[in-house]
């Protein structure tokens, strides 16, 4: 077991790096109902999440773009994959527990950088809340740094 932990760590790093190199669902969703920015452009990372709902609590379209470190970009792509491929409802997305998400990524990798690890997920949740409020088509883009 002593030897197993570093291997797991390497595997988890490799997963994040693979997502950084092949980001899932990255791009602009032209007909998004909500465009939600999150994060800090110069510190850790920033993302913009594009969400389209079907009006019945399901996610019809979800994508993102952003820039940042390996943790924030990799974790955003992983969250996107889970939500889109898993056909999660908006309610299910809101119920994803941040601590559990960080545990799965690897607490030993993330350490104190939980904000980076949850940047994408928290911005997706913010987009869903915005959608649910009925404030559609918030087209505000973040000011570039």
């Amino acid at each position, binding site marked *: 077991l002593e030897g197993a932990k570093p291997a797991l760590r390497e595997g988890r790093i490799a997963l994040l790096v693979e997502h950084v190199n092949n980001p899932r669902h990255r791009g602009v969703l032209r007909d998004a109902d909500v465009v939600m920015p*999150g*994060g800090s452009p110069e510190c850790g990372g920033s993302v913009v999440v594009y969400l389209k709902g079907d009006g019945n609590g399901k996610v019809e379209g979800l994508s993102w773009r952003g820039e940042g470190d*390996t943790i924030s970009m990799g974790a955003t792509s992983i969250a996107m994959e889970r939500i889109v491929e898993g056909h999660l409802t908006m309610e299910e997305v809101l119920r994803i527990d941040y601590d559990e998400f960080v545990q799965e990524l690897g607490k030993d*990798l993330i350490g104190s950088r939980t904000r980076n690890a949850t940047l994408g997920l928290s911005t997706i949740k913010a987009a869903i809340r915005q959608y649910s409020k009925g404030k559609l088509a918030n087209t505000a883009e973040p000011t570039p740094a």
Partner: protein
Amino acid sequence: MIVDREETGMTEQEIQEKGYANPDALVSTQWVQENLDDAANIRIVESDEDVLLYDIGHIPNAVKVDWVEDLNDPLTRDYVDPDHFASLMSEKGISPETTVIFYGDKNNWWATYALWVFRLFGHDKVKVMDGGRIKWESEGREMTQEVPSFPTAEYPVPTRDDSKIRAFRDDVMAHLKKVREGEGGLIDVRSPGEYRGELLHMPDYPQEGALRGGHIPGAKNVPWARAAREDGTFKSAQELREIYEGEAGLKPDGDTIAYCRIGERSSHTWFVLSYLLGYDNVRNYDGSWTEWGNVVRAPIER
């Protein structure tokens, strides 16, 4: 791809030719290549914003110092205490006589931050690898995932002296009068959007944000990365003087305070002003905007 390092790698002579007040504060990638096995005298330290880069690959014989986990106190907003610093040094095989060569991502942004913290503890044998990680990588030099192991070193518990290179909120408040009278320099090294107070309106802004946006009155805005060239190396002394003295009006013999959001970007500017341009009196206000923008009645300009 075969790279002819003799021709493409920056040499010490090229650093000399950039005209710095303290050219010895920098070493070239070529120098690091030639000295990386000299573990008895030097320790190469990688310090990044992107904390996983070291695991993905680093310079052979480099150790990692993480500004979050290693240098920040986990409870109080401060740096680790002298006992922790001494054990960190010991664990990395660094003695007070070891010359520490810092490098990292983002134009050595976090490398200079770590260097500044080392200086708080009186570790003065410090240098930066000009060009940082990106230059090393672009020159096709060797990277490894192997974490080196060095014998633990004796590192007596140092005394931390914050007075010379670190400014606190009250110091900045007192400094405002000097700034108004043209006797003190104040430099805000954040992006223009942050300086103008426009970026705080983003929804879901991180908890490190501030309640108010803007800048400290009298501060001039010179984004930190303007000190670097596209290849990650520092601009020449003349180019730097044109920016910091020509545009921002700083005086080499003046009293200068630099700040950003949490004090890391401004440590880069602190390094440029104090080492490369040789200013005697530069302090980094690490409380920076996340403190100032939350202080009741602190004066703000937009």
